[in-house]
Structure formats: C-alpha cells, structure tokens
C-alpha cells in the first residue's frame, strides 16, 4: 500500500515536469495586440497590428516613447501574415485583447467575408471587439494616428465608438459575432461604422501629435457603411445613419433639433426611445410599419415660445414627430432607391411574422425591398422642460 502510494506520487510529480506546461506564456512573452488592420495589397492581405508597449502605458517611466508599436506584414492569408510578424517582433502576436478591427475601404469594397474566417475560427480571439471601416483611407494609416486622452489609439477608438453610440446615435457598435450573423441572414445586409483620419497623417503618426492641445490629426467616426452581403457599396450620411439606429432601436440617447413655429431653433434631448417594426403581407406585397415612441426633454431653446402652455408643448411634440418621420422616411427611400439593399432588417421581420410569404419573397428580397411601402409613425412626448421654464430670449423681450 505504502509503496504504491509512493510510486503514485512519484508518477504525479514526474507528470508535472513532462507536461511541458503546454500553453504557458509569461506576460512578458506576449505582444498584446489591441488593434488590427486589414488591407488589400494586390491579391494579398496586408495586416497591420497595433501592439502595446506596456512599460510606456503603465510603467513608472512612461511617456518617452510612443505607447504602441506596429507590426505589418503581407501574406496570402491572414495567419500567414500574422505569423510572419515574428520575423520583426520579439514576441508572438497575442490577439485576445483585440479592441478594434479596422478594415480598409478598398478591402471592404472587394468583400470582407474571407478575411473574417480566421478571426472567427481562431480560439485566441474573443468576439467582443468592434469592427469599423477606414473611410477613404487604409486601415494601417488609421491605426497609426496617436491619440491623447486614451494613450492607446485602439482603446481610444473603442471607447469613443462606445460613448458616441450611447449618447449621439449615428454610429453603431458591431462585434464579430453580430457581423457574421448579419452576413448569414437572408433578410438583412450588414452595416459598419466608418472611421476617418482628420488632419495631417504625417504629424499624426509622430509623438508631435501628442504635444498639441488641438492635435493635428484625429480619428473620427463618421457615417455608416452600407454593405451588399460582404461588399461595401456606399456610405450613409449622419442623418441617414441616425435613421438607421432609430429603426434598429439602438437609440440610447441623442439630440434632435427642430425649428420653432415662429422661427429659431429648439433642441430636444432624447431620453428614451422604443421602436417597434411590424411587417404585414397582403397578396405578394409586403409592407412595413415603423412605430417610434420617444420621450424627450427640452434641452435648449433659441426661440420665443411659451413653454408654460400645454398647447405649445403639444405643438412642439407634433413638430418633433414630423421631423423624425421626415428624415427617417427620406433615409429609407434613399436606401431603397440608391443602394437597393435591405440594411434595416425588414426581411428578417417579414420572415419572423409571415414565414410562409417569406419563402416566396426571399428569392429576390432586395428587389421587393426597393418597392416596399414603409410607413413611419412617431409619437414624441416631452417630459421635462429643464431648470428654467421660458427662454432667456423671451425674458429679455419682456424687459424691453
């Protein structure tokens, strides 16, 4: 018994050493990649990775060098390019903490499907990073711009997209699994947020960019990219992007500006919005009814209206309804006419509500989409007037 125990424990101890510590990697053996850019270079992929230099970000010394470094390599496949990077990098690229994946516009126009395979297949990647499109530039260039408030540019991009989605609306956060789901869906084409480099690319790449109060170069989100399956076919402007987020019920908070009855502007802060999209099929004609219930506060008054009267509020609500309905309908019309792809997911709604009709409709759904009547009904409610009741302008008039 005792001998057996001793033997067993000897084996166990030996096991500890023969295991070779299979996946063991020390923290200082990792090239922590927070941003990855994919561009097309001829037939090959050009992959650029933004790797954090930890001591520059969190170390005691910090701040002498740039906080990140970049490795880029061209290869027939993504993995080939990434592995090739070790010829320049002392550490293996470690992509679990990827925050942003930037796809170059030229790659996006040719199709992003192939590029996504590795990213979804590899077990090292988490699927919680955001995917954006470098608008009018390459992914590599976008990743090269140094940022100030968040030292790591990719983290900056990640946080900026997250906050702008929450409080401004015309951007949308899409993670890898969502994108793949949309690519596979028959009733919806994907949409990705675009990112632009504003200002001087040359200065933006050097630490000179960090020494200025108003940096020479910035990265900025602007508009949504419209895809037909996995190919980029065009861009939505800010208002259309906002309409997209309204229809997809992704509005958390935003600002709407309306014109007062007697001229002047009035800003409404969206506090809460709920969109319900209903589909119906009569004969072979699908229709979509969009209902939006919005609760808002009066945020800014630059005209003379008497906010103490309920009639005024009712009128403002009506104006807000018209405004919202107007631009949402216009945006849908534009997409129907210009891009002819269903980015709003109306097909999915018909699929869900009328599965039988969908079987016939899905064959040429995009065709059906362009001809489909869509009605928008907005029900705005103004809840709060803010800390003052009437505007300063009105008070001044009274005094005179």
């Amino acid at each position, binding site marked *: 018994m005792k001998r057996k125990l001793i033997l067993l424990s000897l084996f166990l101890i030996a096991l500890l050493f023969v295991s070779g*510590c299979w996946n063991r990697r020390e923290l*200082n053996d990792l090239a922590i990649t*927070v941003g990855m850019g994919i561009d097309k270079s001829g037939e090959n992929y050009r992959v650029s990775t933004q790797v954090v230099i930890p001591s520059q*970000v969190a170390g005691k010394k910090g701040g002498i060098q740039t906080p990140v470094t970049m490795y880029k390599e061209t290869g027939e496949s993504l993995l080939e390019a990434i592995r090739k990077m070790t010829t320049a990098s002392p550490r293996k690229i470690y992509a679990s*903490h990827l925050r942003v994946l930037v796809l170059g516009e030229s790659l996006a126009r040719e199709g992003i499907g192939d590029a996504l395979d590795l990213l979804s297949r590899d077990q090292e990647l988490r699927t919680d990073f955001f995917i954006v499109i470098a608008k009018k530039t390459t992914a590599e260039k976008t990743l090269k711009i140094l940022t100030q408030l968040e030292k790591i540019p990719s983290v900056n991009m990640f946080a900026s997209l997250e906050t702008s989605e929450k409080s401004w609306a015309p951007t949308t956060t899409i993670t890898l699994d969502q994108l793949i789901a949309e690519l596979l869906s028959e009733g919806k084409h994907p949409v990705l947020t675009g990112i632009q480099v504003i200002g001087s690319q040359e200065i933006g790449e050097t630490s000179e960019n960090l020494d200025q109060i108003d940096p020479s170069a910035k990265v900025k989100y602007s508009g949504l990219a419209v895809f037909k399956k996995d190919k980029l076919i065009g861009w939505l402007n800010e208002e259309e992007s906002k309409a997209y987020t309204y229809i997809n019920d992704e509005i958390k908070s935003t600002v709407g500006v309306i014109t007062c009855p007697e001229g002047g502007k009035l800003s409404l802060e969206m506090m809460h919005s709920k969109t319900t999209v209903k589909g119906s099929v009569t004969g072979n004609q699908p229709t979509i009814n969009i209902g939006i219930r919005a609760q808002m506060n009066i945020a800014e008054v630059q005209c003379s209206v008497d906010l103490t009267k309920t009639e005024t509020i009712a009128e403002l609500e009506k104006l807000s309804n018209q405004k919202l309905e107007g631009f949402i309908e216009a945006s849908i019309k534009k997409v129907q006419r210009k891009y002819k792809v269903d980015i709003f997911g109306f097909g999915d709604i018909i699929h869900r509500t009328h599965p039988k009709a969908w079987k016939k409709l899905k064959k040429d759904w995009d065709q059906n989409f362009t001809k489909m009547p869509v009605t928008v009904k907005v029900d705005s409610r103004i809840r709060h007037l803010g800390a003052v009741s009437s505007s300063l302008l009105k008070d001044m008039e009274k005094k005179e």
Partner: protein
Amino acid sequence: MNNKQSSQPLQQNKQSSDPHNSALHSSLQDNIQQVKKMLGNSSDIIIREIEIGSTELIRAGIFYTDGLTDTPSIQNFIKESLLCDIHANLDQSISSEQNVLGLLKNRFLGVGEIQDVTDINSLLSSLLSGDVVLLLDGCTQGFAIGMRGGKDRGVMESTTESVIRGPKEGFTENMRTNAALIRRKIKDSRLWMETKSIGRVTHTDVAVMYIKGIVNDKILEEVHTRLDRIDIDGILESGYIEELIQDETYTPFPTVYYSERPDVIAAELLEGKVAIIVDGTPNVLIVPALFISFTHAAEDYYQRADISSLIRIIRYISMFVALLAPSLYIAVTTFHQEMLPTQLLIGLAAQREGVPFPAFIEALMMEVAFEVLREASLRMPKAIAQAISIVGTLVIGTAAVEAGVVSAVMVIVVSITAISSFVLPAFPMSMSFRMLRFPMMGLAASFGLFGIILGVIALVLHLCSLRSFGVPYMSPLAPFIKADNKDTIIRVPWWGMFSRPRLINQKNIVREQNNAPSPEAPQNNSGG
C-alpha cells in the same frame, strides 16, 4: 539534559523494582536508604527525620521534593500537626502501629488530601509528583499528603487566541489549574474527569474531561482506548498525545482541535465533545474535531449574530485567498491572460517587464521568503525581532521590486495571502493552508486553472474522506445536516440554536427549550 537525568532513575527503578516491588520495610532507616538509593541521592529530595510523641517516641520520616511542594505549608504542618499537638494525645493510644496510623490520619493531619502508601513505587511516584510522604518507624505503611505547590506561571491572558470581547484568561501549564478553570465555567455534577498517567518515564498526568449525559459514550470509550494504547517514554506536550491518538497521520489537516481558552473548551464540552488535559501544556485537546470548528473563533459566539456571520464569511473568503491567491495569479497570468481586463493586463505586463523569472518561480521565491521570515521572527530572540522584521519588509517589499527581481504585483499577492492566512482563528488550520498553497502553485504553473480546479477537487475529496473519532470531518456540511448548519458558515442568534451537533451527541440533543424566547417587544408593558 532532562531526559538524561530522568532515564537513570528509571533503570535503577527497573532493576530494583523486581526484588523490592512490594511492601515498604518496617524500618524507617531501611526505607530512607531505599529511597535514596533509588533516586540516586538526588539533592532536591529532602528527607527529614523527626520524633513524635512525648513519652514513647516514634521516629517519623518526611519526604518531599524541593520545588514541587508548597514549602510554607510543610513547615506549618510539621510544626503544628506533628511536633506540638500530637504529644499529649499520642502517648495514650500507642499500642499498635495501626492505631498510630489511624489516629494520625484521622485526628492530627490537618490537610485535605491524604492517600495511603504501601509500596515503594507508589511512594516514589507520589514523592515525584510533589506530594509529601510521611513514613513512621515500624510501620509498613505511610501517607502521601497532597501539598503540591511550587512555582507556577499563574493564569494569564491567552496570547495565541486573543479576543476583544469575552474572557481573557488562558490555560496554564498546571493541569489542576486548567481543570479548575473549566469547572469554574461549568458548575455541574455531570462534568466528570478521569485522570491517567501516561509516559513510562515522565508519568505525565492526562485528564479526560466530559459532561456525562451529553457526551457520546462511544466516542468517550474510543478516547480511552486510544489513550490506553499509548506506550511512550515521555509526554512533554499535548502534541504528543494528539499525534498518538489522531485518526489520520498522512493528512495536512488537523483532526484534533486544541485551544488555550477555558471558555472555548467549555463550549466544546457542552456540545458533547471530550477534552483531554495534559499536565504541563497550556493547550487542551478536544475530540472529535470538525473542520468547521477550526474556522470559528470564540468571539463569534459573544458578538451579535449578524456581525459574527459577516465576519465568518470574510474568514471563509480569506481562507480561499490564503489557499489560492498565488496560484490564481500564476494561472491567470501565464495561461488565461484573456480573462483579465485589457487595462489590467497591460498594467501587469508593464510590471513584469524585465523580471527574469517565470511567474511561478517568482511566486515560489516570494512565498518561501515569507515563510522564512515568519519562522525567523518566531524563533529569534524577541529583542532583535523588530530589527529583523524591518529588514525583511524592506528587502522583500521594496528592494526586490526595485531591483527587478520580482514584480510589485507579486509582492501584493504574497502579502494578501500572508495576511489572509492569519485570519483563520486556529493556527494549525492556517498552517495546513499555507502548506497546501505550494502544491496548488505547482498545479497552477503546469495546468493553469484546470490544475487548480483539479487540486481543489482532490482536496475536497480528501476532506470528505477524513474522520475524527468516527465523526465525518466535514460534517455538518458533508454529510449535510440542516439543523446543524445554524452554526457553520453563519451563526444564527442563540435563541435559534436549540440543538447540539447531531453526529457528535446522538442522545441529548436539545440545548434549549423548543419554545425558545425569540426576543419580542413586551406586549402589555406600555410606557413605564
């Protein structure tokens, strides 16, 4: 030294005990010679010859060990009982030796504890335990008079189990004092005590204490069997007994509980456990021991129930921290970096830049350094303790990090682990956890979280397989006994704990009346 001295008399004792095993000589001189011979003429054995009676003198010998007896009372006793009063009365009745002895015992010896001594061995054992032995010339019988005394440490505040609220007294090295301390808590006729002498050379008094009617008789019997089985030359500390009677030797966990506090022992006795008091040890053993007892502090029962429960939960958390913190750190930083938030990962990576060792070696170094420091501060003379601890903190805390040998986070992890391990109220259990930390670190370094989970599973299996005097070690958690869980992870208020642990005492379970008074506002009494 001590052992050498005491082993000589033993051999003499053995050699001489065969021919002289039996009765005392009738001649006092012979007896004195015999005792002197057997004790190697040791200078601390005082033999005083006196004569008692006035007309017919009887020679009497008084034997005692200097230092073990209460010297003033011996002097009093000789002066008052033997030299003065006796004279007048004794003469009349001296006819036979029986008479003298009876008379002395019944009328003249003004002391409480008297035992008859008839053979030389019991004479010696009484003498060496601190009794005064009185022999008369011409009698083959004498008395052992209980006058134990001598220098004692006295009851002092418990140093190893301190509390904020609750009694401060702690046990001493004297078994009698210890028993008295317990009896002061439980003044009941059912508190019984049985004394044994264990150790062929040391003849250490070992007392088994229990409350008759509450104790589980099977467990009591088992305790007696195991104690009687002990055959060893010396018992110098209760640890000897613990190791000789515990159920399982090859386990990191203690299966015998001990405490320095009379209130803790009293509480355990009330739960039906058996206390073993060993003379010369301020730590009283308690069996059966449950895992859960080691995580409970005396104060838990004196503080309000809600506070105690919260503190217990904190204690359990720190138990896991003490066991797993370094291994979790190793596993997460070397296998599962994706589990960390990005900012934290970058922060950790920045600290590890330039550290030449893998995290496992780093952790091992720091843990060993800490254990060395702990052991050193325990062993070294108290006067230089402070100097060493300053050096230790500076070297380990600051210099090692600045020199880039270890990362700062590792110092934090090791410190948290160390502090957490001291949260456990029972020292033996915190030792177990400290020891188990090292294999856990090894598992974490080779298999990551998978290894840690395997280790924990193995540990739980092992814990569940343990028994202490027949009682499952993990009870009442495994097997789960609902009623007993009122006092495990949390503690319900006293009015909610009606019952004693089910598995320990099967007969007498009710601790309180069933309709225990849950505190309610008095209904009739308005105002006042």
